[in-house]
């Protein structure tokens, strides 16, 4: 293999598994260390700079970082990254002073943001400090989009959401709430230099063809619409017996909200097997904890209506069958149809994009599925002035993805308004700096703790089920949070190897607890992977290969299960190994100044 090019900003970035897996690439180990040091305000700002909604995400994020956590590969349970983020938000001091301070020198450009959800708000935050005049339109009475209408208050208290939405609106955003935009053409004629569409995926899927759907309409609701009605206090109760159709997080929110509005016998009925449900495992756990029954492998057949009143639903039992590619098919079993009683049904089987307000003759192309044609890198539509982001761009995902796309769309809008090439994007900000404090002394806590994941305490069920606004999770207390931070392996503190200094004493190879380092003859990657002390079979993890050493061998390090304990560097007599902290911040239109370093191109 050729020597690894560690100058490529993505090489060390990839080693920081959590950060790499995060769509917004939040510097996770960095803020976890700040929490351990009780610097909650700084930890919050590291988050805010990157993901804009630390308090919201610390409670509701889909946490793509956690399955990626290195801890999973050496122990079992990942660091509770998401809930540590909440600790920063809960314990922070005055953060406003660290945020951009308006009023900003206007740059004469005007942008319209349609939809007030996470994507639009991110664009607003990135563009406002650059002097853009930002106009935000939303049909709801307040900003936040689906974070407000779909995430129930027992998971995300309104104060937390309001606080973080207001940090952005306070940057001088011109908001036009309770304003449904019904024509993009009209907006385009409003003299904006660019338009960003962040309208999400607002249409809940229905089962229009299922027998009984029309007859029972009064008792059947679309999940996200129902949740929004609950959030805005239009709906305050539900019947005793409730069926929730669907197996995603919306279904979990529906059933748990039902329990709080009077539902006693709440059942979730889902087509797929329990383990393959789309809902996050912890959401399912919380639902089960609230006495909600989850019935899997049941396909709905009909709504049963008697005397104009819904009495229940019929289902066909199915079993999953997998072909050789692992593709699943649900085949009916021989068992008879199943009838489940219900007074009301909530349909939470997915949501779709809907753009009835965009005229199809203004040069904005849509594909065969009715989705706008959007460049995956620049988020620009075929109408150069119009950009998309969040669920509106590529279908429903999650808040953190919407934020990540918002950042990129803002970069594009800024480049576009400056008349620059959208594909020639500024590099990410990176920094690599030695953590050596003295002989065998590091500036980070290098010891590897074997503690297992700590559990986040919850409020009592008897209390939370009575009040839909009572938050269930209490968050880590400070001492537990500290213990949980210590489980982080500091993967951003990189093992940096300088071949010219190596005397090949083997000390690093001998001491490495996880046998990551091997000195061996060079070969092509597949062969080299097999020749290591323990074969490197996790192909998603790279090999760090040095240039040829004096004896003709090369140093090969398998990044897979490296604990970043620093022992290789401690046992290295010549400092050929050094522990260096890698900071990576995604390209943004407006890079925060201190406490974070500014972007330079």
């Amino acid at each position, binding site marked *: 293999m050729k020597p690894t090019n560690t100058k490529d900003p993505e090489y060390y970035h990839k080693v920081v598994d959590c950060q790499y897996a995060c769509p917004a690439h939040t510097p996770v180990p960095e803020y976890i260390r700040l929490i351990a040091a009780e610097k909650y305000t700084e930890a919050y700002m590291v988050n805010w700079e990157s993901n804009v909604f630390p308090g919201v995400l610390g409670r509701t994020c889909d946490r793509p970082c956690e399955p990626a956590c290195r801890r999973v590969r*050496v122990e079992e349970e990942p660091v509770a990254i998401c809930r540590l983020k909440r600790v920063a938000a809960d314990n922070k001091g005055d953060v406003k002073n660290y945020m951009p301070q308006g009023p900003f020198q206007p740059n004469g450009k005007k942008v319209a943001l349609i939809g007030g959800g996470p994507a639009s708000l991110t664009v607003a935050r990135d563009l406002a400090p650059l002097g853009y005049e930002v106009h935000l339109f939303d049909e709801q009475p307040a900003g936040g989009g689906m974070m407000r209408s779909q995430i129930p208050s027992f998971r995300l208290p309104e104060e937390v959401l309001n606080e973080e939405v207001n940090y952005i609106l306070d940057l001088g955003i011109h908001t036009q709430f309770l304003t449904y935009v019904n024509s993009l053409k009209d907006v385009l004629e409003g003299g904006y230099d660019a338009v960003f569409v962040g309208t999400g995926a607002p249409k809940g899927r229905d089962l229009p063809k299922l027998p009984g759907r029309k007859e029972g309409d009064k008792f059947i609701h679309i999940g996200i619409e129902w949740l929004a009605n609950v959030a805005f206090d239009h709906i305050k109760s539900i019947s005793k017996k409730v069926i929730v159709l669907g197996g995603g997080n919306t279904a979990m929110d529906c059933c748990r909200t039902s329990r709080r509005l009077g539902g006693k016998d709440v059942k979730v009925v889902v087509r797929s097997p329990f383990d393959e449900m789309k809902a996050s495992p912890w959401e399912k756990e919380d639902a089960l904890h609230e006495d909600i029954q989850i019935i899997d492998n049941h396909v709905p057949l009909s709504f049963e209506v008697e005397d104009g009143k819904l009495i229940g639903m019929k289902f066909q039992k199915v079993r999953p069958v997998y072909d050789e590619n692992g593709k699943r098919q649900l085949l009916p079993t021989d068992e008879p149809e199943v009838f489940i009683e219900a007074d009301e049904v909530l349909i939470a089987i997915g949501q779709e994009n809907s753009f009835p307000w965009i005229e199809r003759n203004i040069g904005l192309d849509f594909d065969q599925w009715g989705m706008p044609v959007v460049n995956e890198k620049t988020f620009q539509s075929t109408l150069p002035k119009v950009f998309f982001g969040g669920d509106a761009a590529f279908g429903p995902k999650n808040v953190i993805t919407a934020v990540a796309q918002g950042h990129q769309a803002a970069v594009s809008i800024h480049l576009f308004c400056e008349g620059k090439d959208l594909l020639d994007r500024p590099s990410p900000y990176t920094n690599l700096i030695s953590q050596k404090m003295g002989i065998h002394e590091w500036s980070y806590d290098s010891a590897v703790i074997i503690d297992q994941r700590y559990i986040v305490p919850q409020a009592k069920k008897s209390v939370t089920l009575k009040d839909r606004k009572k938050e269930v999770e209490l968050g880590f207390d400070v001492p537990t949070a500290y213990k949980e931070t210590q489980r982080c392996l500091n993967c951003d503190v990189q093992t940096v190897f300088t071949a010219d200094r190596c005397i090949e*004493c083997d000390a690093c190879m001998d*001491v490495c607890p996880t046998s990551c380092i091997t000195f061996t003859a060079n070969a092509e990657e597949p062969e080299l992977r097999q020749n290591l002390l323990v074969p490197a079979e996790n192909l998603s993890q790279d090999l760090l290969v040095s240039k040829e050493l004096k004896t003709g061998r090369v140093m090969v390090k398998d990044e897979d299960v490296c604990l970043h304990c620093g022992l290789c560097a401690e046992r290295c007599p010549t400092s050929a190994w050094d522990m260096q902290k890698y900071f990576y911040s995604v390209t943004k239109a407006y890079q925060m100044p201190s406490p974070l370093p500014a972007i330079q191109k």
Partner: protein
Amino acid sequence: MSYLKPLFRHPKLPKNKLGYTLKEYEGSLSTLCAGCGHDSISAAIVQACFELSIEPHKVAKISGIGCSSKTPTYFLGNSHGFNSVHGRMPSVATGANMANKDMVYFGVSGDGDSASIGMGQLVHVIRRNLNMVYIVMNNGCYGLTKGQDSATADQGSKSKAGSINPFQAIDLASLAIELGASFVAQSFSGDKLQLVPLIKAALHHKGFAFLNVISPCVTFNNNPGSTKSYDYVREHIEATSSLDFVPEMPEIKTKYDEGKSTRVAMHDGTLIQLNKLANDWDPEDRISAVNALQKARSKNEILTGLLYVNTEWNDLHGTLNTHQTPLNKLKEEDLCPGDEALKEINDGFR
């Protein structure tokens, strides 16, 4: 500074016949200087014991004083250990071995411990052919007292402070062959491919197995001009053979060139497969081994590999014709013949 090694290991670490991974053979985190050759030798011992599936509780590590003699703390943490008086490891090892011959004995020593203060003990333990593995971690200097030349420092070798050693070096390998050691090998801490099979072969040798391992002192004797530095040793190393230790007797699959491959059968039926790199050398011929060593020395080469092996000589228990049951397992009734027998013996002297 880390005082403890993290407890996590590679989840796919291979297991040996006992179901153990390398972890069960490791010791505590080394406190020797970073980059010390001794740590590599420790790692080679760990590897060899792991590969041979030796039960850790059946091993005794005995050492004297010095950097090298600290190393038993850093390998085989689940085995027995005895850190004895300076240079007196052979006596303790002899005593232990006499009491319980069922154990594997690792004597770990350095050039000071063996070639200076303990020389008198070393020569006698060789002479007695005690069944043990005796490893000298040879760095040519007294590392623990800031790097003075030791008795194995080569004449003309330059110390870190710049002085040239005026004295002849004691060649431990030649000495061991001369005194009748039945297994003599020489190796280099930086060459585990050679060192691990050598240790494995030594462990299977019944008798005194002597390994002189050049082990650079990174702090005091790794300077230009030193003949025990990583660079010097790598440049001047000359192997007698490449060696495979064959625990069981498989069929010969690889065909070696005529006259270049030798097999030596050990007492327990295991084999050493030697692929000779040096001509006119026979590992079972003492004279050719001594010649090879002398020739190498005259060319400033460091001859490594298995130099000499004799599987016919009795070890100390054989020579003394001791009881088959280890002494420590004999009961009082086995050892004490009783009043009658004592009276008979006493009467014999009257």
